[in-house]
């Protein structure tokens, strides 16, 4: 699986989320050879972990399915999963990239029949569900996973559990001797599309994330609403499994804050407005949402979405950044603050508090091999000094899916221009 004929006319795309997939496909569909490197065992990134998209509230499975079809039908894209870039050498038009590929312990023979999963008993945390639940140590990363192949968790290798999985497989797909390897890939241009991570909410000390079970993040709330999530699509609060009908959304949890993230994460307002729909959908009777905000930034043409939510009698807007959260004796999180419209103090209990956490670039703090210019928040900036390493999607800015795709297409075009020059010089 690791033999690739990559030349300096190849484009390497780092990150297989919506931006990376888009950049890879756009480039491949113009006839370029692409290597797509993804660190997780399946493509799709954070988009695949959403329950629904805004503004049309369709499921991301739909958008991903289109991209996966394009991918399956295109021989020019080579996908490497469980792979991370460990070094970049060279310059524009002539890069050599080292890629570390972790063992999956399952080869191409896998039919995703699920026998190994049934044979294995060990449970491990499920990062696809933000560790809200667990799955078997032999698992399919998610229902739509591409490649549609199982993975063995490294923790069971060398134990009888791994042997059980191997014995259960009728297709000889389990290979316990796989080892981590580092391969070298030639590329003319590199697209860096490593996306984002939710800001660590535990750092916002007064909100008690990590101390109070019923204070969760917006990305975790997506998993609660999803039928493939840990609760089977029911909005149940973590402390006691009670239905969370009275949900508070706290905006700018980490964003627009000099003590946390300096930038506006741009998607959180729309995400919370969208999530009020989940509350109404799951609890047609008695569902209630409260949005605490500084100002609602329904970016661009989404103002009508905001107005529709405003007209919803089950949604209350309170213009205030919550100052602190405490917990009452029944485990309800209690929001404290001052409503800046009228300057009234409030102390309000809810069933569940959802922190609309900010977007932190995944590249922040990590050392991208080679020189990359980034802004004060750690997002990659377009800079001639970057050579032919181009940022795409949320690695470059806080973007929603729509804008991430636009950004990825732009990056693909830049990369195509570089490899076209290389091709001309060689012709």
């Amino acid at each position, binding site marked *: 699986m690791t033999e690739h004929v990559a030349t300096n006319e190849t484009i390497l795309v780092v990150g297989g989320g919506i931006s990376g997939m888009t950049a890879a496909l756009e480039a491949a569909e113009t006839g370029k050879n692409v290597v797509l490197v993804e660190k997780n065992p399946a493509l799709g990134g954070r988009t695949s972990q959403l329950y629904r998209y805004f503004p049309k509230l369709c499921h991301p499975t739909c958008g991903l399915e289109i991209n996966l079809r394009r991918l399956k039908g295109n021989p020019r894209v080579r996908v490497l999963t469980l792979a991370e870039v460990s070094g970049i050498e060279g310059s524009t038009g002539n890069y050599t990239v080292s890629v570390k590929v972790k063992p999956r312990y399952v080869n191409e023979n896998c039919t995703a029949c699920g026998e190994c999963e049934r044979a294995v008993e060990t449970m491990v945390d499920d990062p696809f569900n933000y560790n809200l639940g667990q799955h078997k140590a032999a698992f399919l990363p998610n229902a739509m996973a591409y490649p549609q192949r199982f993975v063995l968790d490294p923790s069971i290798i060398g134990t009888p559990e791994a042997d059980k999985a191997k014995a259960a497989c009728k297709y000889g797909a389990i290979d316990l001797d796989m080892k981590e390897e580092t391969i070298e890939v030639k590329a003319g241009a590199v697209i860096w599309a490593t996306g984002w991570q939710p800001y660590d909410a535990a750092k916002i000390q*007064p909100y008690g994330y990590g101390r109070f079970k019923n204070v969760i993040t917006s990305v975790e709330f997506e998993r609660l609403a999803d039928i493939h999530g840990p609760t089977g699509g029911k909005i149940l609060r973590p402390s006691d499994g009670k239905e969370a009908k009275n949900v508070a959304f706290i905006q700018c949890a980490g964003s627009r*804050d000099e003590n946390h993230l300096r930038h506006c994460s741009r998607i959180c307002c729309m995400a919370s407005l969208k999530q009020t729909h989940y509350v109404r959908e799951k609890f047609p009777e008695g569902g209630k949402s409260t949005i605490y905000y500084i100002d609602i930034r329904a970016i661009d043409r989404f103002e009508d979405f905001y107005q529709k939510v405003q007209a919803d009698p089950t949604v209350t807007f309170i213009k205030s*950044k919550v100052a602190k959260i405490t917990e009452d004796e029944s485990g309800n999180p209690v929001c404290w603050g*001052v409503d800046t419209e009228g300057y009234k*103090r409030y102390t309000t209990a809810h069933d569940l508090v959802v922190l609309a956490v900010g977007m932190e670039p995944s590249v922040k703090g990590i050392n991208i091999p080679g020189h990359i210019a980034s802004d004060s928040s750690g997002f990659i900036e377009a800079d001639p000094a970057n050579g032919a390493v181009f940022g795409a999607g949320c690695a470059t800015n806080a973007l929603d899916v729509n804008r991430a795709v636009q950004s990825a297409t732009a990056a693909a075009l830049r990369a195509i221009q570089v490899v076209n020059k290389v091709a001309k010089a060689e012709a």
Partner: protein
Amino acid sequence: MSANTAVADKYRNNFLKEIEEQVEMGDWVKMCMQCGVCSGSCPTNFQSAWEHPPQELFMMIRAGKREEVLTSTSMWNCTSCYNCIVRCPRKIPITHIMHGIAEYAHRIGKAPKMQATRFFSVLFWKNCTNTGRVNELKLSLGLYFKDGFVQGVKNGLAMQSVAIGLIKAGRLNPLELFGGHKCKDQKGIQAMLAKAYEIERVRKAAKMAG
């Protein structure tokens, strides 16, 4: 002046400019984004001590409400816990601005005379600069009689047992009422303070004159 600052300048009324020029760190007022975290984080907040919490004061300044702001008792209630500065998402030095507004209101004679914090501050300053030493007996008596003679006697009687205890323990000397202890160079310290006060007065007058 860039086009941007020219447009922004239209929104800076005279009172906001006055605060920016006269109040310590007053130029931060325009940075407030009205999120309300300062007020929510204030330890006095949920005792309704503040008539106008900090972000409301900032908005009132930006709305040009000069009389309401300067005669308000609100900023005098600040306990200097610094919670608001720590929590402010824009790192606005709110505590310092509260003290700055209070000081300015006092300087130009707008501060409410009988507001307890202001009353005590004036009393304390006079008390300690007079002899160079704090006279605790005179200070507490001064505070007891703040609201009139009858109330002062009542306060004194209420604190009687504490006072007797302090005298017995040698922590309170009744003779302090007559003059009291002093520092070595009483004249020198007064001259030094007078000089410092003069320097500050000249500096602030120059600022006021623009």
